[in-house]
């Protein structure tokens, strides 16, 4: 008994301060940032992206470049491929959004007759930066979450489990993981939704009392990720049940999950 207490005291307090501070390590590979005005070669950058998160389409005098953070697996390949530092990897992780379209940014360029890219016509707005205030307003509420793995690779589960460890300690927000959907306010769903989990997800959703929230976790949960839509997958949670918040990441780190969950709670009853 004494040994147990001694070890506990020696370990001290390890819980991180997020969301009040405690920046993540600068080594963390988070959101790739695009300097649209100086991006000369979006097409060659797009060709290295393993998930097709960067899309370039040309029509007439216009080039449209779309980056979809919902498809991004944060591999950083684009930063290595783009010339002149037009793409940089940042440790940013607060990317969750309430609308799928909020995860996409679009820029338009002129094209000259030879097909060379000209001036930037329109750049995108920042994403994901708006919600700090909201989060603080909702702290103190209690929330019961049922986690549903709808066919993930288990990477997302590792990070969700980490929310319960003493560094992230999600219970300090009054948030608990519960064993039954009947006790849940929120379903936290991972995976591209396999055909074999489609029915189970529908039934779990039906068993969760109203009002309820659904959070799609990770690139697979948002849009099928690297698995996309195929004979065995549905291509994301919102193909099967309505989704309130999308949390990008492959997998999202615990702080990113926390951000997304708190974002979702801010909408409850609103």
């Amino acid at each position: 008994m004494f040994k147990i207490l001694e070890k506990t005291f020696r370990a001290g307090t390890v819980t991180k301060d997020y969301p009040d501070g405690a920046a993540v390590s600068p080594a963390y590979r988070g959101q790739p940032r695009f300097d649209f005005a100086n991006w000369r070669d979006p097409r060659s950058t797009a060709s290295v992206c393993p998930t097709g998160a960067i899309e370039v389409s040309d029509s007439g005098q216009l080039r449209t470049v779309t980056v979809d953070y919902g498809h991004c697996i944060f591999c950083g390949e684009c930063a290595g491929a783009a010339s002149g530092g037009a793409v940089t990897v940042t440790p940013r992780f607060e990317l969750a959004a309430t609308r799928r379209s909020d995860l996409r940014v679009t820029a338009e360029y002129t094209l000259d007759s030879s097909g060379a890219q000209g001036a930037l016509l329109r750049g995108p707005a920042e994403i994901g930066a708006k919600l700090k205030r909201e989060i603080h307003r909702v702290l103190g509420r209690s929330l019961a979450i049922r986690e549903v793995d709808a066919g993930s690779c288990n990477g997302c589960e590792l990070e969700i489990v980490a929310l319960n460890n003493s560094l992230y300690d999600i219970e300090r927000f009054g948030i608990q993981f519960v064993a039954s959907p009947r006790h849940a306010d929120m379903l936290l769903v991972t995976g591209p939704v396999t055909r074999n989990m489609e029915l189970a997800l529908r039934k779990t959703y039906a068993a969760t009392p109203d009002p309820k929230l659904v959070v799609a976790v990770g690139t697979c949960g948002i849009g099928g990720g690297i698995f996309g839509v195929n004979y065995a997958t549905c291509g994301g949670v919102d193909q099967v049940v309505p989704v309130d918040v999308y949390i990008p990441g492959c997998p999202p780190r615990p702080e990113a999950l926390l951000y997304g969950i708190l974002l979702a709670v801010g909408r409850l009853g609103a």
Partner: protein
Amino acid sequence: MEALLRELEQASGGAARVMESRAAEIYAKAPLAAIPEIAQALLGVPGARIVAVFAEDRVEPEGVFYNYYVFERTGVEPYLIVRAAIPAADPRFPSLSASLPALNWQEREIQDWFGLEAEGHPNPRRVALHDNWPDVHPLRKDFDLRAKLDAFEGERHTYRPTLGEGVFQIPVGPVHAGIIEPGHFNFAVAGEPILYLQLRMFYTHKGTEKLFESFPVSKCVFLAESVSGDSAFSHATAFSQAVERASGIEVPLRAEVMRTVLLELERIYNHIADIGAMAMDVGFVIANAHAGRIREMVLEVNEELTGSRLLRGMACIGGVRRDWSPAQIAALPAKLSRVEAEFRSMRELIRYSDSTRDRLESTGFLSPEKAAALGIVGVGGRASGVDLDVRRDHPYAAYRRFSLRIPSFSEGDVLRRMCVRTDEVYASIALICAAAGSIPAGPHRAAEVAVPPGRYALAAVEGWRGEILYWVRTGPNQTIERCKIKDPSLNNWPALVEAVQGNIIADFPVINKSFNLSYSGTDR
């Protein structure tokens, strides 16, 4: 190895012939009808083992399907791979499962994926495709990856009936109470003790092997990272090694040592978490709290070295994707010795807790005989006397350069599975420190990575769970024609079924955790 080949030729009456002999693999071909005899002869020797069986659709170019039977023998480095052609017009092959239960699921997978009948299989029901799937065979080349199958209806699976007075059935899953992957467990219990357990897996099947055939090779590495997220680096490295061997790509020594460090980091973070979780499952919550914290120390190291807590985006064909600075390397031993000190004192807490030990010892017993017969690998095998480890038996990366301590026990209970993990944590830390002290200068990835078409190779990695196997055949224009994946979980589910029998249902969580198998790795 020469002896083995002579045996092979004798066993088949001269019908089997060696096709190709490489450092790490020997390929032979044999008539389909001779396979049972060949298998019997090859496995009749002590230390011999059948590693896997898998199929390939070569109907378009060659008019046949191939079955590949992979064998290994203690002390012999190359794998022996016997290939048998199955005519497209007569899609059947003789089942070996009745005498080799280790192949039970694998042969049924071949039935489901390729529509080849395993003749004489003791339990020929579907395993990979659930019963409500239409009659499709997704790994046939004429099946479209994007095929839109109709909504599934009807009964999923009929379980063996549970009969007898006072015998009850407890169905669990696919959505479980904890934060774990989906699968269905059907327990038959008489009072507290479990009579038997039936499993239904493949809920997380994502068409992964088929997807490999649709991506450029470079993108396939990311797919391999997503086969089992807790083994992202091991899977992606096993895949990369298979492509490297097939294509004759030389991996720089620096990269081989870096890979070794990363593979061991993956082992440590998972083992620490599992030891904590096992303690928690028998009520020792504080040990798990410490384990969670110590695991985070390792994840921090991961992040510092790779930009990812789970080692993603680091594996690539021809080496590793990112280099390390001298300062990063120099900092490793001190960080790991802090992990070791913390881990040691956490482990002591468990060791001195009599009530915890009482719950772990003799629980979930798997006998060495059963483990060997079922083909159990990895942690579960080494706790039951099956002393296999790819790092020693078929060395890859830089494992040849370092001494390895491989723990092995014969008691086969939950406690010994915890002990295997514990000893491996210490051994891995020692290995990482030794490796960090000897990372040679030079490039961290091959300058050029060209993948010629029509080459094939097998590669294995000892992931933290056990043997991860990849076999690839390359296609035209930097593509993959076929990618076979075998996660150790696939072998080891039957071990769980065996180990829970006679235990009380309250001990199921800790027995399950002591194996901690990957559903996604199984289901792909």
